[in-house]
């Protein structure tokens, strides 16, 4: 082969190689992968099914808008049955078959268990848990919450109580679980700082049981308010019914997982006047501008739960964090996205929260107090948005 021919062949080969690289780069779709361990069966299925629907709808919507900085979003969610071992297995399965950038966890236990693995794989995670323990960027640097932690939620209730009835007495009623015990110590400290009296704590055993003996304790203490934590539904309506049978004037309150309209509806008449803290706007809350809530209402004709809205919030925060990271020219690793998250201020959630939000540690300490109006079948806001310092 002559020298010219050799050069020509070399050029052709180089050209093919180069064009191949270009073709390969063009063919490789830019995508952001959101993995999720979702409890679509088991005791938290009521939340997981809705959350899964919220994530799916968000992903469809954001891809219709052109994705995130030109990246399409792919969602991979699998059922866990609300079992930690299943959640971990789902995490391993999803992360082994896709380059996951962002992950959603379904429980406190899962989020505690998977923490080291997150750091090893450099993935940013959020989840369904509001456990106070997770609100520690030192120990959980690649995790953040979708609202206030449980201590902050109870703190908001206490702030409201202190404003409505200064010096009031408050009973804390919680389940004998890690979930139930979570905010108790912080609640005592905050109550003292606010000049409220903690009338006592009532602990209920896990599982189905009669709470009549515990309700007698409520009568003995006769508190102005009682805050439930660590429950979804039972034994809240049973407690309220017993309190009414004893002619108590106590006002009852709850935290996030008790506060969905579907749970309030299940309580029946007992729900009248029931109050609680909720960081997100309800589906039907049309007060104030909320473009994302408008989109949600446009997509859905019927009521959607707060966990569905939580799915959208997960997506929106991912969009903001990933978008800022990409604009800064950084790869979508967990550490880079955490850096971005720490630099964000006054994040717009499209009206899901009533005002722009800021992270404090791993949580967003913002929420509002609502009261049940059984006749209207709605939760009505009774406070402004409360942001804890």
């Amino acid at each position, binding site marked *: 082969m002559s020298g010219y021919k050799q050069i020509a062949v070399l050029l052709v080969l180089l050209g093919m190689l180069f064009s191949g690289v270009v073709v390969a780069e063009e063919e490789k779709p830019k995508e952001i992968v959101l993995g999720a361990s979702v409890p679509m*069966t*088991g*005791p*938290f*299925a*009521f939340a997981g099914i809705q959350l899964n629907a919220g994530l799916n709808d968000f992903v469809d919507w954001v891809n219709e808008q052109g994705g995130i900085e030109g990246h399409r979003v792919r969602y991979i969610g699998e059922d866990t049955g609300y079992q930690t071992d299943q959640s971990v297995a789902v995490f391993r399965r999803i992360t082994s078959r896709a380059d996951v950038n962002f992950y959603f966890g379904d429980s406190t236990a899962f989020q505690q268990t998977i923490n080291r693995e997150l750091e090893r794989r450099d993935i940013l995670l959020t989840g369904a848990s509001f456990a106070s323990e997770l609100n520690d960027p030192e120990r959980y640097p690649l995790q953040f919450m979708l609202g206030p932690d449980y201590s902050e939620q109870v703190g908001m209730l206490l702030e409201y109580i202190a404003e409505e009835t200064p010096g009031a007495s408050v009973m804390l009623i919680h389940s*004998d679980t890690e979930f139930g015990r979570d905010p108790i110590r912080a609640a005592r400290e905050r109550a003292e700082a606010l000049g409220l009296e903690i009338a006592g704590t*009532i*602990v*209920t*055993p896990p*599982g*189905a*049981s*009669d*709470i*009549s*003996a*515990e*309700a*007698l*304790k409520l009568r*003995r203490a006769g508190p102005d308010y009682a805050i439930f934590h660590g429950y*979804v*539904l*039972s*034994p809240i*309506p*049973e407690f309220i*019914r*017993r309190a009414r*049978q*004893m002619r108590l004037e106590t006002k009852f309150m709850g935290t996030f997982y008790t506060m969905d309209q*579907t*749970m309030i509806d*299940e*309580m*029946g008449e007992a729900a009248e006047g029931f109050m609680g803290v909720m960081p997100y706007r309800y589906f039907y809350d049309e007060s104030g501008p909320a473009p994302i809530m408008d989109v949600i209402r446009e997509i859905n004709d019927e009521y959607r739960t707060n966990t569905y809205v939580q799915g959208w919030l997960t997506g929106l925060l991912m969009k903001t964090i990933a978008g800022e990271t990409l604009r800064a020219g950084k790869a979508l690793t967990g550490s880079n996205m955490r850096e971005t998250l720490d630099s964000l201020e006054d994040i717009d959630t499209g009206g899901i929260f009533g005002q722009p939000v800021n992270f404090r540690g791993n949580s967003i300490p913002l929420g509002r107090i609502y009261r049940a109006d059984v006749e209207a079948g709605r939760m009505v806001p009774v406070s402004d948005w409360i942001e804890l310092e």
Partner: protein
Amino acid sequence: MQGLIEFIEISLTGLGMGGLYALTGVAFVLIYKATRVINLAIGEMLMVGAYLFFGLAAGLALPWWLAILFALAGGGLLGLLLERAVIRPMLGENPISVFMVTIGLGSILVGLVELIWTADPRRLPQFLPDEPIFLGPVFVFPEPFWSFVIAAAVIGVFVLLFRYWRGGVALRATALDQGAAYAMGINVPRVYALAWMLAGMIAAGAGMLLGSIAGLSPALALFGLTVLVVVIVGGLDSVPGVLLAGILIGWIESLAGSYLGGEYEHLVTFALLLVVLLVRPWGLFGTPEVERL
């Protein structure tokens, strides 16, 4: 004086739960005495009864009394079905195998309930009177009070049936000596079916009462765990033992919950189980020859 009134109130509250323990315990013992099967699915059978009532009263909007009758019939039918389809083919097998089958049955029943009604927490339509009861200065919540009254009445009816009804006598005869029962012309397989059917009905009734007190979710089946403690403490094959143990454990749990805290309720129950197993492993009134697993 106030302390004494409180003690009485707490004790009476405990009797409500005790009555339900005793009632479900009777269902357990009925099966064990007649068929020698340790039925660990009793909590799940109870839960199915509560869901049947929920489906009929809330889903189909039947009057509560009709829903109760149908739910009881449904519970009986479930017992009959389980005996015929699952337990009877296992007769003669190793007791551990049958015991394990009942654990599997429990999982299947929970799965079925979650398929039909989902695992979402629910509230049973109220059918117990809502007016508080005053016994002099003593206040009693209506739900546990009426639960106890109903449980006691049902147990009373069953005691009479066992004593005087032909089927009840056949049950007792089979429990005492199967060979002799066969020899006397008693249709023993039919007695087995009868025991499971009656146990299914009793469990369904207890499930409806428990659901009205504690709310409705598949977690209701966990009640079966405490019932297991009740029957071990009372004696696996003793109806009077189970009645006494049920009331005793209900009372102790109520006192522990009130004076120590809810976190001690189950601790005290299982501590009692441990003591009984160490001191009198056949239970307070059980037969010492009973085979332990």
